[in-house]
């Protein structure tokens, strides 16, 4: 069972999201935080905690006049947004604070071309490629070091071990796009065919461009609070049923001992150990798609399908709207843009509130959202009261 007090999500919000918006990270944080508070009818006066990945929680609190702050977290070694969510949940459950805004603010990363030209120096991504020191001395001189390279390695291992095919990943990409077609906030809404997928260029074979999320500027914010407070908010509360966070090694994806089954298996087992619910109770699943293989590993880790069966499971249409368990109903980060995991939380909340209109799953009662894989990851199970 989950320790401590029952936690709920009261509000969710996004900033303006787009390609090279010119908006500062402060502006993206301000817009998304105020949108999330407005969503639940709260104000900054109700907030006594801030958690974020990258950026700076105290800096953000000062900007918004949130003081005193009883809990904050500015995470660096974090498996995307779910880390900020888990810290918020832990802080409220334990009683250290009452209401936490968890954010993920993303400034569009430079393209590979700009990295090579040494442009985009203000972005942390550029520094990752400029000095072969520390662990990077075993990657950069070898021509490795981009996340697409480890994503290619983990994709290939799944194919080699389980017989997964490139078409299986294509079915996943096509299914997500069909969901995005029903989401006005998605960048990409035109249907895709298998030919389109197979014509997409490789970035690190077997990984294709269409297997990668889409870089953009984005701010996402979610208001976590106690169940009691959430019941007084403007929107119906969504309860945190269980949460788990897992790290199995340092962050060197390239030398994982087994690339086909990684941290999500440990994380999912822990998640299910904290609840009476199981995979069959899920109405929807919102599984990180920074690379297609991540979604596949989570389908298997959570027990939505069997080990090694994600490819055929997706190809049979089970993850589509109308299928056995609709996955990434907003279209995923490949289509709504890189919100570094936060979109999966927000879409899960909206499904459980019944706010998803054309893509609404009927009578949604329980949804899971997950971020990252490989060395580290996290998962949160949400449900209707």
């Amino acid at each position, binding site marked *: 069972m989950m320790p401590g007090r029952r936690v709920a999500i009261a509000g969710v919000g996004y900033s303006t999201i787009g390609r090279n918006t010119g908006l500062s990270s402060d502006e993206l944080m301000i817009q998304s935080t105020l949108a999330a508070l407005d969503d639940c009818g709260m104000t900054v006066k109700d907030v006594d905690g801030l958690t974020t990945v990258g950026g700076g929680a105290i800096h953000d609190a000062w900007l918004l006049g949130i003081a005193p702050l009883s809990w904050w977290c500015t995470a660096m070694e974090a498996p995307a947004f779910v880390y900020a969510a888990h810290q918020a949940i832990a802080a409220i459950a334990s009683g250290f604070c009452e209401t936490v805004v968890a954010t993920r603010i993303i400034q569009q990363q430079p393209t590979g071309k700009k990295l090579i030209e040494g442009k985009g120096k203000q972005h942390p991504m550029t520094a990752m490629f400029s000095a072969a020191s520390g662990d990077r*001395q*075993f*990657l950069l001189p070898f021509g490795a070091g981009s996340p*697409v390279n480890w994503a290619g390695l983990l994709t290939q*291992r799944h194919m080699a071990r389980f017989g997964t095919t490139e078409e299986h990943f294509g079915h996943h990409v096509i299914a997500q796009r069909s969901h995005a077609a029903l989401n006005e906030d998605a960048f990409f809404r035109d249907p895709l065919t298998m030919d389109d997928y197979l014509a997409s260029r490789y970035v690190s074979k077997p990984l294709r461009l269409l297997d990668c999320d889409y870089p953009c500027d984005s701010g996402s914010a979610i208001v976590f609070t106690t169940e009691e407070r959430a019941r007084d908010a403007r929107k119906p509360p969504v309860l945190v049923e269980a949460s788990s966070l897992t790290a199995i090694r340092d962050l060197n994806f390239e030398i994982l001992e087994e690339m086909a089954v990684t941290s999500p298996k440990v994380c999912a087992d822990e998640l299910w150990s904290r609840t009476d619910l199981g995979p069959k109770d899920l109405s929807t699943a919102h599984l990180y798609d920074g690379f297609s293989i991540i979604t596949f590993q989570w389908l298997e880790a959570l027990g939505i399908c069997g080990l090694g069966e994600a490819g055929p499971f997706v190809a049979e249409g089970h993850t589509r709207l109308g299928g056995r368990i609709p996955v990434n109903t907003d279209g995923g980060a490949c289509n709504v843009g890189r919100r570094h995991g936060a979109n999966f939380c927000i879409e899960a909340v909206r499904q459980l509130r019944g706010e998803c209109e054309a893509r609404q799953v009927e009578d949604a009662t329980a949804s899971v959202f997950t971020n990252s894989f490989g060395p580290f990851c996290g998962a949160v199970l949400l449900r209707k009261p």
Partner: protein
Amino acid sequence: MSDPATGPLLPIPDEWSRFFWDGLAEGELRIQRCQQCGKYIHYPKPICRFCLSRELAGEPVSGRARLHSWTVATQAFHPFWIARLPFTLATVELEEQPGLMFLSQLVECAEDDLSAGLPLEVVFEEISSELTLPFFRPSHGSEAR
């Protein structure tokens, strides 16, 4: 001296990794090994995570390995590698210890011939006058496990 603008990105060795790069210059693949419990550790670290010993040293290894996974890089993230595309990055498991993984490149093999578990052997590639790297190729001998 290779031109820094056109040459490969050179490693910046530190006190824990210097033996590795020195070994390559001498035609030897060396991996850090705990002198207390005998476990190999890669990437090199200031402490053995198995027994917390500080007695660590680089030791030569056989260079024999099995292929765990691979990916064909079709986009480079450093100018030096653009002209060398495509090339195959691989994670290999060194035979000395289960789970002792090493990231490298595969050479002298066709993509269609690759499969998980393929026996490999190290081959030293002079990338530039200042950089020799341990790459892997399918093993020719009968030493495969």
